[in-house]
């Protein structure tokens, strides 16, 4: 996407924003870090935006909300859902953010290059739908769709929910994203197989808390899992029970507020498909309480902060399809 850096300069010099939240160039191409830029010189020197700027910047705005003045931010469609959800929860004041929506065709990640077996990456060039990658061991070409971040594989929407300004074209929700296919596949398995599947995944957890800390919906000042007075603080899963507990509670606490931005899975150093827990809640909510997309608007109530007198009973879990344990 061209013009992002130019826009950052413009916003700072034109006085529309006191600071800009964007990406700082890394040592190489796949490692930009989110950063706050206060001056045009800084932007000139360090600002970068390219196919590897996949991080969701919304959560940083909670802290920046306390700073004087307006923060300009660049949001991809999925990031805009997170921001709207945070505004809805009164964690961020809308008027303190100047939102530049950036159209997105899916972001790429180092992990995907590794998975594709590309070793020794040095630099890349975007060539239409492909990435030309220079490596220590020769040049290679990879289709952009094969280099996507895990969270971009089943993009749910190209629509930027709210913005002050738009770079590129506004998009639509993706009707056939297929994002629940994997959840449905798991639901069809026997409870024994599901249990084995999740034990295999969750037992790799090292409790680094990256999934929790990156999550825009996880915005408690002090998490129960860090609080020595909560009685359930644990720094490491000393028993398999604790692996289950952490991940159930983490996903439950954001249920109906989770926008499915997929950051949890992107950051997991152990590559646990954590989004499959969140998507299970979203799928259940859609099926039991009507379609609901967190962060898609400013006024609807999240499903768990709402009810209907005619809601189904919890026993629906017992009567819905699938084998019994």
């Amino acid at each position, binding site marked *: 996407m061209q013009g992002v850096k130019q826009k950052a300069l413009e916003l700072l010099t034109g006085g529309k924003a006191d600071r800009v939240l964007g990406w700082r160039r890394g040592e190489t191409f796949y490692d930009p870090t989110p950063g706050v830029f206060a001056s045009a010189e800084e932007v000139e020197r360090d600002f970068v935006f390219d196919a590897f700027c996949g991080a969701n910047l919304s959560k940083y705005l909670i802290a920046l909300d306390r700073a004087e003045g307006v923060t300009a931010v660049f949001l991809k469609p999925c990031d805009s859902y997170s921001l709207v959800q945070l505004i809805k929860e009164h964690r961020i004041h809308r008027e303190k953010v100047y939102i530049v929506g950036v159209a997105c065709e899916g972001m790429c990640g180092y992990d995907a290059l590794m998975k594709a077996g590309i070793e020794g990456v040095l630099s890349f060039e975007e060539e239409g739908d492909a990435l030309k990658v220079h490596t220590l061991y020769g040049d290679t070409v990879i289709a952009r769709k094969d280099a996507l971040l895990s969270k971009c594989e089943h993009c749910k929407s190209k629509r930027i929910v709210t913005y002050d300004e738009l770079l590129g074209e506004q998009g639509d929700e993706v009707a056939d994203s297929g994002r629940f296919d994997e959840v449905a596949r798991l*639901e069809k398995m026997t409870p024994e197989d599901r249990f084995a599947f999740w034990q295999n995944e969750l037992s790799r957890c090292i409790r680094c808390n990256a999934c929790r800390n990156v999550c825009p919906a996880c915005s408690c000042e002090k998490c129960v899992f860090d609080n020595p007075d909560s009685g359930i603080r644990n720094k490491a899963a000393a028993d398999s*029970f604790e692996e289950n507990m952490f991940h159930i509670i983490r996903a439950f606490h954001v*249920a109906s507020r989770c926008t499915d931005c997929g950051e949890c899975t992107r950051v997991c150093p152990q590559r646990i498909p954590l989004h499959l827990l969140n998507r299970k809640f979203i799928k259940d909510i859609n099926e039991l*309480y009507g379609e609901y997309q967190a962060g898609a608007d400013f006024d609807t109530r999240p499903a768990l902060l709402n009810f209907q007198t005619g809601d189904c009973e919890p026993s629906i879990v017992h009567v819905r399809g699938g084998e019994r344990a």
Partner: protein
Amino acid sequence: MSVKTDWKPTIVAFCCNWCSYAGADLSGTNRLQYPANVKIIRIPCSCRLNPMFVLRAFQRGADGVILCGCHPGDCHYTTGNYYARRRMTLLFSMLDYLGIERDRTRVEWVSAAEGAKFAATMNEFVATVTALGENRRLEDLRCKA
């Protein structure tokens, strides 16, 4: 699932203060029988039940967890049980998704006048969980040592 003949499950029953706890009381004063391995924990409203309580009950040795509250529409706080209903639906569904036996969890609405329903529900739930056997998938081995 090996079930020893003399094995009795531990059941934790979270009961709301206004309806179900009174219902349990009534079943007692009416001399209705339900197994002694049902441990009642009184909570102010069914919606006080944090999902963590359910997990912690399993961790500390429960083989089944049941939530009892006022019938929908009769909540002492007007709407608490409606929220509880959605939460438990999603939590139970998640436990099922993780491969934990879905018959270990249950929600039942029991009013203060339904002593007989309370006893019957507990008898039935204990029988169900007894048939399932010990909770192995959501246990904490350190609590069993």
